[in-house]
């Protein structure tokens, strides 16, 4: 018997997806017409002290939206304003956790909210320079955020003496060059120093020794975009949205086997089932839901029963056995071959392991090879134990948390669907139909060689 669920009272408010998206809605003029940069004006012209900005963000209970849900105000509060050091803020726009594309939406559609948040955060911690680290492959999101920065400079919202105050800030938009691990904050700062993106051990924390050994705050795009919202509404009003322990909203990008994939802004405390079956239109092909990857592939998989009666907030997701992570949700339909899916995940981790820590560098390739042979029909009886063994050796022995999750993303699937792995190893074929796509647009399509090209390879 499950305990009766008490539905939280929701405000129904949205902070980001609350206006019509038009060809100009991302521009400075449109953002200002919606009340944009008034929070910044209130702070800079109203004489709000940096400490009071931090206090407001702390009181609002803003949690990091990059995956770890660390309280933003607490992170900022570590910076000591009078230590005589330069302080930096870096916006983490290196969105790369598989299944996650909500920051892309924010960068493309509301880039000025992120920029305003970056300025406010920099003001709060006494920063003179700030950075926007954006993933290398992003094209439109880069042009949109660079455009927003350029517009802000031209309007006196960046550069020297912002809005006539004595506060000055320069912002660099820094494009990565293709690396998953650079989404990890310490790897990101190494990359920002022009080096390969290797994470480093903590302590010291990045807020103590970060970019070029100077105190640095790294915040996700969505986290920063919430800051002007908080300062406009006030912490108390902000907290009326969401749940007491997860105030506000979460941008969720959903993909996989739902009928309406895309980006949604969901108030914390919203029903998970309602979200999947109503908002996202249920599962393709009229199938049932098999399982969910809740917040990027690095979060543990939950089967359909585990989300019954669960609300979309951090505490509820943890109680259900996983995390909301980066808001990158992937729905998987009944009938999907979990062995093949695990292999896709493991190929990814092997590809992206930065090579620094032995357990991850060697283990991820090993796990991929094991899964490869299972999928080829050459699995060995002890391969399941082997996968657990390698994953366990990885857990807690790597510098960054990406290394940890690299193993258990696969073993969490094993925990739930062990019989599929056993069947594949025993029979040399999938227990399901072996397909990953429910509706494959390329099924039955016969490729004819493009003119001038050599004969088709398949």
């Amino acid at each position, binding site marked *: 018997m499950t305990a009766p669920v008490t539905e939280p009272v929701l405000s129904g408010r949205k902070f980001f997806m609350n206006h019509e998206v038009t060809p100009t809605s991302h521009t400075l003029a449109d953002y200002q017409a919606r009340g944009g940069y008034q929070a910044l004006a209130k702070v800079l012209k109203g004489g709000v002290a940096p400490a009071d900005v931090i206090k407001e963000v702390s009181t609002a209970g803003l949690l990091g939206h990059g995956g770890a849900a660390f309280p933003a105000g607490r992170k900022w509060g570590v910076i000591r304003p009078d230590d005589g050091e330069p302080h930096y803020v870096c916006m983490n726009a290196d*969105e*790369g*956790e*598989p*299944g*996650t*594309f909500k920051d*892309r939406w924010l960068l493309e559609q509301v880039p000025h909210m992120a920029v305003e948040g970056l300025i406010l955060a920099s003001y709060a911690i006494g920063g*003179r*320079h700030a950075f926007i680290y954006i*993933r*290398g*492959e*992003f*094209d439109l999101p880069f042009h949109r955020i660079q455009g927003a920065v350029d517009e802000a400079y031209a309007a006196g919202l960046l550069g020297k003496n912002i809005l006539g105050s004595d506060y000055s800030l*320069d*912002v*660099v938009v*820094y*494009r*990565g*060059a*293709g*690396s998953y691990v650079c989404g990890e904050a310490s790897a990101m700062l190494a990359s920002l120093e*022009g*080096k*390969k*993106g290797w994470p480093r051990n903590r302590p010291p924390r990045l807020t103590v020794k970060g970019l*070029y050994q100077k105190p640095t705050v790294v915040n996700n795009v969505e986290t920063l975009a919430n800051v002007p919202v908080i300062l406009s509404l006030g912490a108390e009003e902000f907290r009326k949205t969401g749940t007491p322990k997860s105030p506000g909203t979460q941008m969720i*990008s*959903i*993909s*996989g086997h739902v009928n309406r*994939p*895309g*980006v949604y802004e969901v108030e914390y405390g919203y029903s998970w089932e309602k979200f999947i079956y109503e908002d996202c239109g249920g599962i393709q092909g009229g199938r049932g839901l098999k399982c969910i990857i809740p917040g990027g592939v690095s979060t543990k998989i939950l089967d359909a029963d585990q989300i019954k009666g669960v609300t979309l907030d951090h505490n509820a997701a943890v109680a259900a056995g996983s995390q909301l992570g980066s808001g990158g949700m*992937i729905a*998987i339909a009944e009938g999907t071959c979990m062995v093949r*899916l695990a292999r*896709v*995940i493991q190929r*990814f981790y092997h*590809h*992206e392991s930065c090579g620094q820590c032995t357990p991850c560098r060697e283990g991820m390739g090993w796990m991929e090879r094991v899964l490869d042979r299972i999928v080829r029909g050459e699995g060995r009886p002890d391969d399941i134990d082997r996968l657990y063994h390698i994953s366990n050796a990885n857990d807690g022995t790597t510098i960054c948390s990406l290394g940890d999750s690299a193993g258990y993303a696969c073993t969490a699937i094993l925990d739930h669907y062990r019989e599929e792995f056993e069947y594949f190893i025993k029979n040399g074929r999938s227990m399901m139909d072996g397909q*990953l*796509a*429910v509706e494959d*647009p*390329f099924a039955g*399509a*016969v*490729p*004819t*060689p*493009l003119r*001038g*090209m*050599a004969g*088709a*390879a398949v």
Partner: protein
Amino acid sequence: MNAPMQNIQHLIPEFERWKERYPAGFEGSLTIPCLRRIQEERGYIADSDIDELVAYLGVPRTQVDEVLGFYTMFTREPLGRYHLQVCHNVSCSLRGADGLIKYLCGRLGIQPGETTPDGQFTISTAECLASCGTAPMMIVNETYHEDLTPAKVDALLEELAK
């Protein structure tokens, strides 16, 4: 000691402008942006580019070598005129990425990692490109092409092959 700036000389004024928004002492940070800019121009990074960049930025050569080896977007050799990068991560796989890759390979007569003999097309597989809700997808050079179907791929290839 300083290599003569033959290949990147014309880019130096641009690099110098970038420096204005960085704090002092951040020259090393320009390694990645400069390499990106050079590759944008040439299509790949040549040995001489590395020599010149090392001389210009004053960074250790190993740093540039490491960066070139570490990040997937850098290439030391020319690719096809059109670089087709197909995502085959989880969400795209659930929406038909395998079929898309097979279809592209069939149409172009090459395998992932290869370039067509006429130097027009290179196919690569890629990991999550944050386009999961519009899968299957690929990037052609810089541009995202999403919600792909055989008809869309055909139209695109015809256009590019013109």
